[in-house]
């Protein structure tokens, strides 16, 4: 049952210790900062977090890692110039890392949402990231078996929702949102604007409301743009 929730705190209140949490965003684009801050405040710990990166600077996911609430990161690119909180935890042996090529990360998330039990892909074949994995030669190419990544909760950011939970995004902030929404048991979307049912063109909906459980409106930060790509 779709719920419209007044605050980010209430939206994340049901996230339990030990959960696997997908967090949308690529760099800062599409990262649901307010939901992550609320997750920090709610105290849930021992989390496995799925995100492309492992936090930047002193905000969002980086703070969740700093506070020791993340036991494992599943990501493609943890090392950045400002990923110091992850770096410190990793070097101290206080956080587990599952490093996944970015296309495998995306496709494994997609597979989870689509009910696919696994797939073979040439990506990573013959590299250390395929060590210990099943391989086959298919159409003359070495391929590696990859399994889906499921999650208990997805925290994503979209531009607008309508009364049915349908979502549209903005430019490259779309990134992981649509596939994470489908892969998690419970998807929480923060949006800049909620419009009445019928207020979004059905032809332009990116994430159908069936994938969305909770919606919370978060006013866009000062200076953020909110024009849609499509009218």
């Amino acid at each position, binding site marked *: 049952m779709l719920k419209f929730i007044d605050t980010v705190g209430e939206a994340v209140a049901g996230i339990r210790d030990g959960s696997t949490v997908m967090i949308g965003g690529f*760099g*800062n684009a599409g990262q649901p900062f307010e939901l992550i801050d609320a997750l920090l405040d709610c105290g849930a710990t021992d989390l496995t977090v799925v995100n492309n990166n492992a936090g930047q600077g002193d905000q969002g996911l980086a703070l969740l890692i700093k506070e020791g609430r993340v036991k494992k990161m599943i990501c493609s690119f943890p090392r950045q110039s400002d990923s110091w909180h992850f770096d410190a935890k990793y070097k101290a042996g206080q956080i587990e*890392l599952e490093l996944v090529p970015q296309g495998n990360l995306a496709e494994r998330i997609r597979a989870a949402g689509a009910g696919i039990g696994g797939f073979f892909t040439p*990506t990573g074949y013959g590299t250390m990231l395929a060590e210990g994995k099943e391989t086959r030669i298919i159409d003359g190419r070495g391929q590696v078996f990859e399994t889906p990544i499921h999650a208990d909760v997805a925290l994503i950011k979209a531009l607008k929702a309508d009364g049915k939970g349908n979502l549209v995004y903005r430019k490259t902030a779309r990134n992981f949102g649509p596939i994470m929404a489908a892969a998690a048991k419970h998807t929480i979307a923060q949006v800049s604007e909620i419009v009445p049912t019928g207020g979004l063109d059905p032809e332009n909906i990116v994430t159908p409301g069936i994938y969305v459980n909770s919606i919370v409106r978060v006013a866009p930060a000062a200076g953020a743009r909110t024009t849609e790509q499509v009218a």
Partner: protein
Amino acid sequence: MSLVKTTIQTSDKPLGRDDLARLVARDIKPGSFVNLGIGQPTLVSNYLQPEQDITLHTENGMLGMGPEATGEQIDGDLINAGKIPVTELPGASYFHHADSFAIMRGGHLDICVLGAFQVSATGDLANWHTGAPDAIPAVGGAMDLATGAKDVFVMMTLLTRDGASKLVDTCTYPLTGVGCVTRVYTDKAVFLTGPDGVQVRETFGCTLEELQAMVPVPLTAAPAVEP
């Protein structure tokens, strides 16, 4: 295998980064769909000509990426794979991450241009991890690009700071992909890699013989000039 044809020397000095980027840009066939890796390959975009009608792909979900954004154009929701603000060109499209990587992995991109630590004689690529025990590994989209694009071009200096060749018999750094590189653009020569060994298309500031002295794999002159 004969080391003849000094005529393939097309410049009397090694190429700088921008000259190399200009050369790569010139070699991209009109109408191509292209992904430019982070770092040196990004320079190629500065030299693509409008009449080439090249469409740039960025892994974070866009085709039709324009130049880097400046001033009023900067928009936090519109960035490239290096997280730099960019612009969109008329005809651009946005899509989610699984679609973006299906574009790579499904063989739809004509060319990707990547940097490298090492390339082997058979086109193995090492560009994501030094393998050092204290290094934090980060792979991003490198393995998907290397195995998915129809052609993988590498841009790199031929030699390390210590003078060792980065074109090697067998990569010593952890691999990104096996047998995936088709061309290597360096400051000293353009190499064509593949199952038949390494061919030299042109040299810059050295003869083929001098080049051979720097590189530990057998070189032959490429039979014909291809664009």
